[in-house]
């Protein structure tokens, strides 16, 4: 399955964080690469949404939504915003 990019989760992130997030800077916790959210690789067809670093493929963020509740895992990020 082809990845899309962080533009595709603009709505999800706005729902979680309450503001536009696609231009927010991120830093990969594994390789240290800085990118805007829109530039990250997004796998939306996994069970949940998995966001990976395009440079080293590490998992940066995971979102799982059930019954209007969204669980968020940001453990792969060194920085967000």
């Amino acid at each position, binding site marked *: *399955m*082809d*990845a*899309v*990019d*962080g*533009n*595709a989760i*603009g*709505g999800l992130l*706005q*729902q979680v964080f*309450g*503001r*536009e997030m*696609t*231009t927010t800077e991120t830093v990969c916790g594994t390789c240290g690469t800085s990118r*805007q*959210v*829109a*530039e990250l690789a997004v796998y*939306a067809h996994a069970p949940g949404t998995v966001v990976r670093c395009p440079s080293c493929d590490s998992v940066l963020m995971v979102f799982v939504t059930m019954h209007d509740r969204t669980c968020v895992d940001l453990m792969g990020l060194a920085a967000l915003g």
Partner: protein
Amino acid sequence: MAGTALRGRLTWQLAKVVAVTAETASVRTIAVDVPEWPGHQAGQHVDIRLTDEDGYMAERSYSIASAPGEPVALTVERIDDGEVSPYLTDELRAGDSLELRGPIGGYFVWEPEDAGPLLLLAGGSGIVPLRSILRHRERSGSSVPVRLLYSARTLDDVIYQGELDNRAARVEVVYTLTRHQPPGWSGYARRVDPAMLAEVAWPARMTPLAYVCGPTSFVEAASQALVRSGYQPGLVKTERFGGTGGS
């Protein structure tokens, strides 16, 4: 509270379908009336949510095809095994309701005060947000020079062809038809590659602003070629639709 849109909060709302227009055999433009629409920027998208009888929900993002200030219109390509697009292109009729939220996105957007010249690279239905940018440019009176390179499978797959051929001043449109070309076709007939970009794209020394949208493989190849030719990475905006189709 339903119907009370807090600033910054994104709420699902019911839009009314005003009209459905065929663009190509597999592409429809859906004009919608959204009760609480705060206005949008060129390049933004909406999320659409379909709920079946069992309560199963499927959600997809669709680019806004209209310019800021125009009624909201979405252009949707039918993906044959898709969960959402076949309903939107085949079943939806004027008067139907559609659950959506938006506008969404702040990265893949263009404003008339952004520097130029402007390079737009479209693969298949990746033309949709770029069409919003072109219309916004024209409506805002911007004179920034634009080159659009549009990769489609065949001439019949070119979306907005009449509008693109009736182009505004200082807008150049170049097609490449990757699968089938009409008799006498003298344009490009292959996937976008560095040699084609060297001929079509603005030279890097003009510090162009580029928007690249389409299937993921198209966007990867085209944006990497631009950066290798000297485009500033921060001035190459990308939006990947996934899949392989359409370009």
